[in-house]
């Protein structure tokens, strides 16, 4: 069995499962946020049960429109807060809050071998830990909060092998953008993706989270990494409950095996309006930008901020550009402060925000006017994603976003560091 099949079989109480099979699985964690959980809570009330299945395993994170950007956002956050108090379930208040997909792994709430059902499409992020994590809607999550179970169709698995060592300034974001460019936004529809190869073995956990985060942008249900020494090192000190490490079988059956040599991969950029509209940064064209956003559940981790600081150190953001940097969690923020990264950002005339999803989905903290262009380390560049339907979002990793903020147009880091 593949890694996904092994985890699902174990959570369905079966010896083995086959792609296409409909199963009921036990969820280790059920998660929602301030835009999906309000509907889930209302639906939960209609079920006529008084308690969630396990308060330690129901996690609500107001992060999208928080600190509350308007009255309705404040009311939605309050709904989550009141429900969590009533249930004794896990909740993160502003000041303690981070972006859900950054803090759940960081605090050991999600662990290897888990099944996670989250009311957010980027729940797939946790696949970096060797977990089966997938996004669902509010009604599914309402039922999962009550029963601790979700139904699933076992997905076929696409194995992707990356040969070679990545060049400098090329990371997880470039690998996943390149892959989406190769297979398309529905190239992995209904499937699980399983990542392996030399480039993956040497990839940091932060870069693995970035890759798993964006498998939904290829249509995948989940994206998984095998647990290795780096995973165990990451989990050590964070895990507060036992967990199980699953590995794919040597004779696992994959629906496709894709192999790429990435030893000469350039930093990648997704042009409007699709995450599959990929160019190497050298071929992105002469694109002037108005804004650069560095953060989000995709690239808001410490490793991302370190890369941005390497580029911005001693430099200034171009006067025509607003550079907005959003650490993904309080812990990331604090560590960035200790390491002097925040000072580097402020001296470079970047704005640094408290954790929030903010501009990524056009919420707040950096909405675009008509005709404006933004280079962003976020995950989607659909029409109107960050504001006006007449604005444009270009997706890239933190190195390209920071370099572009300095240059005022889309460039790779080597162009501003030479």
């Amino acid at each position, binding site marked *: 069995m593949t890694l996904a099949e092994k985890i699902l079989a174990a959570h369905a109480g079966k010896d083995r499962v086959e792609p296409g099979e409909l199963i009921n699985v036990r969820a280790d964690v059920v998660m929602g946020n301030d*835009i999906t959980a309000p509907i889930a809570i209302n639906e939960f009330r209609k079920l006529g049960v*008084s308690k969630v299945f396990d308060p330690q395993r129901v996690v609500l994170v107001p992060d999208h429109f928080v600190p509350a950007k308007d009255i309705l956002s404040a009311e939605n956050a309050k709904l989550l807060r009141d429900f969590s108090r009533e249930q004794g379930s896990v909740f993160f208040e502003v000041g303690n809050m981070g972006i859900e997909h950054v803090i759940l792994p960081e605090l050991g709430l999600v662990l290897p071998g888990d099944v996670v059902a989250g009311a957010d499409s980027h729940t797939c992020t946790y696949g970096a830990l060797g977990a089966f994590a997938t*996004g669902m*809607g*509010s009604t599914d999550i309402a*039922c999962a909060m009550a*029963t601790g179970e979700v139904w699933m169709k076992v997905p076929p698995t696409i194995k992707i092998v990356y040969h070679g060592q990545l060049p400098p300034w090329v990371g997880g974001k470039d690998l996943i953008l390149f892959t989406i460019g190769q297979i398309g936004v529905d190239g992995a529809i209904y499937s699980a993706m399983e990542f392996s190869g030399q480039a993956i073995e040497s990839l940091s956990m932060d870069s693995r989270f970035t890759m798993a985060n964006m498998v939904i942008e290829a249509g995948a249900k989940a994206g998984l990494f095998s647990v290795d020494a780096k995973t165990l090192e990451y989990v050590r000190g964070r895990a507060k409950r036992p967990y199980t490490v699953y590995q794919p079988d040597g004779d696992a059956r994959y629906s496709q095996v894709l192999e790429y040599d990435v030893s000469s991969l350039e930093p990648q950029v997704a042009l409007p309006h699709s995450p599959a509209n990929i160019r190497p940064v050298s071929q992105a064209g002469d694109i002037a930008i108005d804004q650069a956003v560095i953060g989000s559940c995709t690239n808001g981790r410490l490793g991302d901020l370190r890369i941005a600081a390497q580029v911005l150190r001693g430099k200034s953001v171009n006067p025509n550009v607003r550079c907005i940097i959003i650490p993904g969690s309080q812990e990331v923020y604090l560590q960035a402060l200790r390491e002097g990264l925040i000072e580097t950002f402020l001296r470079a005339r970047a704005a640094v925000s408290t954790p929030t999803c903010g501009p990524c*989905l056009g919420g707040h903290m950096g909405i675009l006017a008509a005709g404006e262009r933004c280079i962003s380390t976020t995950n989607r560049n659909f029409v*109107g994603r960050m504001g006006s339907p007449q604005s444009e979002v270009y997706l890239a990793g933190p190195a390209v976003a920071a370099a572009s903020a300095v240059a005022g147009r889309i460039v790779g880091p080597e162009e501003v560091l030479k």
Partner: protein
Amino acid sequence: MPITGRAWVFGDKVDTDVILPGKYLVLSDEGELGKHALEGFDPGFVTKVQPGDIIVGGRYFGCGSSREQAPVALKGVGIAAVVAETFARIFYRNALNIGLPALECRARHLFQDGDPVSLNLETGEIRNLRTGQMAQAKPIPPFMMDIIAAGGLMNKIRVSLPKG
């Protein structure tokens, strides 16, 4: 019983940000969400659509976020069903969970905006009543039909839960 309505024909990869822009995710009421259905595609869509209309889309309809507000907005503005060549899995799941029928079928080439559509959920038969042309949708899996027959996932789960 077939349902009938006017067709709205869409291309490939209609994403959830276009179906319901992120700024409206503070809303959860079906009627309120319906006022902004497909606003990212055409701000005037809600003034042209009529209750009972049917969306006929292409590949990968509903891609992007998990926002249940996207199918709720379509239902809220009166869309009776969505037919598409393929769906993004979260949108498909959400649509059936909230009682918006979603049928997988390559039918877009048979329709123009405004054509009268007849759609039979049980048999998967989709007919253009203007041209007489017909397409056959993949049947909704029995497991999903159970959810629809129960009136959505909530009703299906409710009967199996202990009270209290």
